[in-house]
């Protein structure tokens, strides 16, 4: 059994890795070293804590949960029911939120982030902002600012490590926490879809990963050519879901990408990189 791995990366970033969890962490302000130490301390045993309730976390029917991260995950996915969802839809974001909270406890960080494979928890103090680049056509930049409530960024879609039921290349969501953004990105990416379209190949999740929490639900494995009209229709389906989530305050904004087209909504502060436009 491999133990958690800890390493420093260039730019004074901390790298924590254990099993499927891979965190890139950065902070600035006072007591950065202490914040990193607290992150390492919280990381120890974190995966075991999650795995002790793995069956309950993979269950679409709400189960009693003990661990604080498990409870964060359950709380983040609950608003999306009755649609099919398990707490695992928020696992990456919830881990990022948990580590960030451990880092900020009693330290004087001005800015910090915990990036868990694209699901990012962000800490900002007054007048601070954090800019992230989106690897998408147009090379957009996403800016989180202290005066807006969003502190979580998450991306879901066909390209990721998790399975998607939809066809979006990527859906990036900003929300109050990384766990909420993670769950919402999953749900919106699932909605970017053209049900019954012959160009879309789907397989039961279990056939791809025996342990998947999605069981026999079909997930997208290949996508053939689509017309511009079909792309627009799929994005509109996703956008409708995103607008409904934004209307109830679940998300602050979203950017939906499929082939050449993109939709954005909410206060995403998506800024074009002028040099590349």
């Amino acid at each position, binding site marked *: 059994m491999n133990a958690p791995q*800890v390493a420093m990366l260039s730019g004074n970033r901390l790298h924590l890795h254990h099993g499927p969890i891979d965190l890139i962490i950065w902070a600035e302000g006072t007591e950065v070293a202490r914040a990193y*130490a607290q992150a390492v301390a919280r990381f120890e045993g974190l995966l075991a804590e999650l795995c002790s309730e793995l069956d309950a976390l993979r269950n679409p029917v709400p189960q009693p949960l003990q661990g604080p991260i498990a409870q964060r995950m359950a709380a983040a996915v609950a608003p999306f029911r009755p649609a099919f969802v398990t707490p695992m839809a928020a696992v990456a974001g919830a881990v990022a939120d948990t580590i960030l909270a451990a880092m900020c406890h009693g330290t004087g960080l001005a800015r910090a982030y915990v990036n868990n494979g694209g699901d990012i928890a962000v800490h900002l103090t007054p007048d601070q902002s954090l800019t992230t680049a989106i690897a998408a056509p147009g090379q957009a930049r996403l800016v989180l600012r202290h005066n807006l409530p969003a502190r979580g960024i998450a991306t879901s879609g066909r390209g990721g490590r998790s399975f998607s039921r939809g066809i979006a290349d990527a859906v990036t969501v900003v929300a109050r926490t990384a766990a909420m953004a993670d769950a919402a990105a999953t749900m919106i990416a699932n909605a970017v879809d053209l049900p019954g379209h012959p160009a879309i190949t789907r397989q039961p999740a279990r056939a791809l990963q025996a342990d998947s929490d999605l069981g026999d639900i079909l997930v997208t494995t290949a996508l053939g050519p689509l017309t511009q009209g079909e792309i627009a229709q799929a994005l509109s389906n996703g956008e409708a879901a995103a607008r409904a989530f934004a209307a109830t305050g679940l998300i602050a904004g979203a950017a939906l990408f499929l082939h050449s087209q993109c939709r954005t909504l909410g206060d995403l502060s998506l800024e074009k990189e002028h040099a590349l436009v």
Partner: protein
Amino acid sequence: MTQSPEKIRCDACPVMCYIAPGQTGACDRYANEAGRIIRTDPVVLLSKTLQGGGRVVPFANRNWEGDAFPADTLITGIGSGTTYPDYKPAPFIIASVVDGADMVTVVTEAIFSYCGVKVKIDTDRFLGPEGATVRAEGEAIGHVTTAEYGSQMLSLGGVHHLTGGEKAEGRATCAALLALCNREAVELTIDQGSTIVAQAGRAPIVDGRPENRMRVGCGSATIGMFADQWHGLVDEVVVVDDHITGVVSEHQAGKVLGWEDTGIKILGRRSTPGRYFRVSEPGLGWGGTSISDPLQILGPWNPKKGARAGLRLLMVSTTGEEFAYFELGAALVPQPKPIPEALLPSVKLIDENCEPSLCTVLFMGGAGGSLRSGVTQNPVRLTRSVQARETRLTSGGAECYVWPGGGITFMVDVTKLPDGAFGYVPTPALVAPLEFTLPRAAYLALGGHAGAIKTLAEMMREGGEYPTGARLQPQAGALK
């Protein structure tokens, strides 16, 4: 749900995924390839013949090309993974033929809570009292130990600092050891002493000032080396040194050449003629002393023993970095004068003959306990085989010095390992690569895991216990 028989449970992390053939686990790093767990991170292989940067070669590639690995490929423990606590054989056990002999190499990454580093800092400057505590991030991580030739020595880490003290102490110790082993710069403060920046293979920085050169020898040795070149150009030479300050007119080397007495008086404890201990306290001044004005080690000049107006005096440090020229005035008091051109070559020669000051870092660890059972079913026989030099121990392909006595306690120069060879676990403990190489017959005799041995060709085709990729690197130097 029924598990089909070919699904296997991955034991690499607590998720314990059931993985069907052709699938990956939740991490995408381990997969079930035809009924066995494989890993995707590259294991590091070294080659002396490989030019330029590293290159990555996948294990288990169906379209394998015969020349993917150079003939002199040496497999290292870096990236091999570990089977700690070794209830199963080490990740790589490889058979190959070396100079006609059938050899087996067992490769693993070992977790060391009993480990530390010895840091040699090439300087005569006083860094702190022997036994003084050395700190990193304010935490005690080791101490100043006995000085060696031209060098100050630090002993850092060890199990008491790593796991015996407060959590913060263990963390700071582990972080400092890891950085030093991976050839990064670390700031160390010595109680009642200096603050130094140490980095393996680089010049030490003492109190913000980079050290340039080791002394050419002690003051007495310097007199011996250069007396001949000074004779006739100057009447007296004093080589200022914290250890032994030399005076040419009194020194045996000067006497042989016929140097005349000068009536000089050195304020220090005379050892033998022309050799003086303790001309000052140790410090950051001339030749590792605390002095910045060399005249303060001189007493009154004695005219009855040869002192006279116009007498020419050269004072120089053991590195040639500091020097001054004087002539005695009418009252027999040295007066500073510009140094004559003819003397400059000898001062420069001292400087030229000094080796560059370096920090060197030796990792020292003990490979005992369960690690040995990943190598053989009879652990103590491995210890004995290593002790008897039958089994060759390398760390990341680098030669190790194995300390005599019990256990497998070894030292290795961290600059001889490839980049990023060391890691750590939050225990806290360091992770270092280890390779055991021994004749196949000897391996089997000491209870080796015969069933786990693969040929080099099989290893290249199939990988080890986990890996499915390999990174090839030139064997030594310029790995950046």
